[in-house]
């Protein structure tokens, strides 16, 4: 999937068991710095489990994960990684600006207030920055979640179903931000079922099937016009 010389993400013989159930089994691949990996697979294939291990939220039962040359729970790896998980990870009682200030402090962002204002503007939330998030529409909350994940300019972005339930405008915004990030050399790993949106960005794909890696490599050109190509070729085997 990528050169072994300087991978941004390295997954080595990773297994994860929930009781006796093998959610992930012997996964092994690298993701090159600056590439965008689309993690594909049917429901229950293990995409979220793998992303949780990469995000340091869960320990693999066996094997090892390295992010940017550091262990997944290493402070340096955490500082340089951004995450959009299943939830938006935003506090309803705080305002949009307070939420971003909180995460700017946690990530040690320099010129925090300037960054907060910049991301509020980039996600079109600057006019409502002092309103409590509980008053926001779903789309506004999701844009704020995007701002939170990008605020500290991460070198690695881990995105779990980032396009799910976004409206057209928010999808376009997220795609544009991801394009900018990739152009800056950021590495992106995203799990998704929304193949059409993901394939516009993905440089590589990995297909998980019942916890095992069914295929990994560069995104086949066919997937741009036929997003289901990979599933038909490998996924239903």
């Amino acid at each position: 999937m990528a050169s072994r010389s300087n991978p941004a993400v390295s997954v080595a013989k990773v297994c994860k068991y929930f009781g006796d159930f093998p959610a992930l089994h012997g996964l092994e691949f690298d993701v090159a710095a600056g590439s965008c990996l689309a993690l594909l697979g049917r429901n229950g294939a293990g995409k979220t489990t793998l992303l949780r291990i990469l995000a340091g939220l869960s320990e693999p039962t066996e094997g090892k994960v390295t992010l940017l040359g550091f262990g997944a729970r290493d402070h340096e790896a955490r500082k340089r990684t951004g995450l959009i998980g299943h939830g938006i990870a935003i506090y309803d009682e705080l305002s949009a600006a307070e939420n971003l200030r909180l995460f700017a402090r946690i990530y040690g962002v320099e010129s925090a207030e300037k960054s907060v204002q910049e991301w509020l503007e980039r996600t079109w939330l600057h006019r409502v920055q002092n309103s409590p998030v509980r008053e926001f529409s779903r789309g506004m909350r999701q844009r704020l979640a995007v701002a939170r994940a990008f605020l500290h300019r991460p070198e690695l972005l881990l995105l779990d179903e980032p396009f799910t339930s976004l409206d057209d405008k928010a999808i376009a915004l997220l795609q544009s931000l991801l394009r900018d990030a990739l152009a800056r050399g950021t590495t992106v790993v995203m799990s998704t079922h929304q193949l059409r949106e993901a394939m516009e960005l993905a440089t590589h794909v990995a297909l998980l099937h019942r916890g095992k890696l069914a295929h990994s490599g560069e995104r086949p050109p066919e997937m741009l016009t036929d997003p289901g190509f990979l599933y038909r070729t490998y996924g239903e085997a």
Partner: protein
Amino acid sequence: MRLIQQAWTVAAKDLRSELRTKESLNAAGGFALVILVLFSFVTDPGETETLYALSGGLLWLVFAFAGVLILNRSFAREQANDCLDALIASPLSPAALILGKSAASFVLLLIVELPCLPIFGGLYGLSQWSSHWLGLVGVVLLGTWGMTVIGAVFSALTVNLRLRELMLPMLVYPLLIPVLMSAMRLSTVFISGKDLEADDAIWLRLMIAFDIIFTALALALAEDVLVS
């Protein structure tokens, strides 16, 4: 230093959120008041000696019950929108998260406890503690820290359980026995207007040791508690 800064960030966030919603403050404050009033019905105001002997126990039962209401919300607050995942995945150290949560719960519980002291004194006609209020406040501070630091760890452990409101007190109360016993004993001494004697010093030492040991354990085990 970074640990303290990060813990302060977490505590300030929790306090700001709670002071806006007042969810656990209203619940714990209301509950403490109701229990104080209900206990006053079963005690005889004429039996001053008995009242003084029971005072520490009564007071700390109220604090322990009210405390669990605050501790239950400590990590449950992070469940909405999966905020806990974002904190664990961030460079925030797990020890800072536990320390910040403990500090926020400590302040919130004190906000409930401190007004309870004069209310307790007034309802039960106990006035001798006014000469030893500083000692009593010291006991409240030490006992409350012990409760909140253990409570924060178990609040994290039980946050994903369906019966967490039940599980938290079942797990926490047995562990709190040493600090509650010490706090009850020392509070009784100060409420009765007496000075600490040599026999009482062991309870003070026990409470201080409990706070130090469990704070160290909480910080050391934070990573294992938070990452599955």
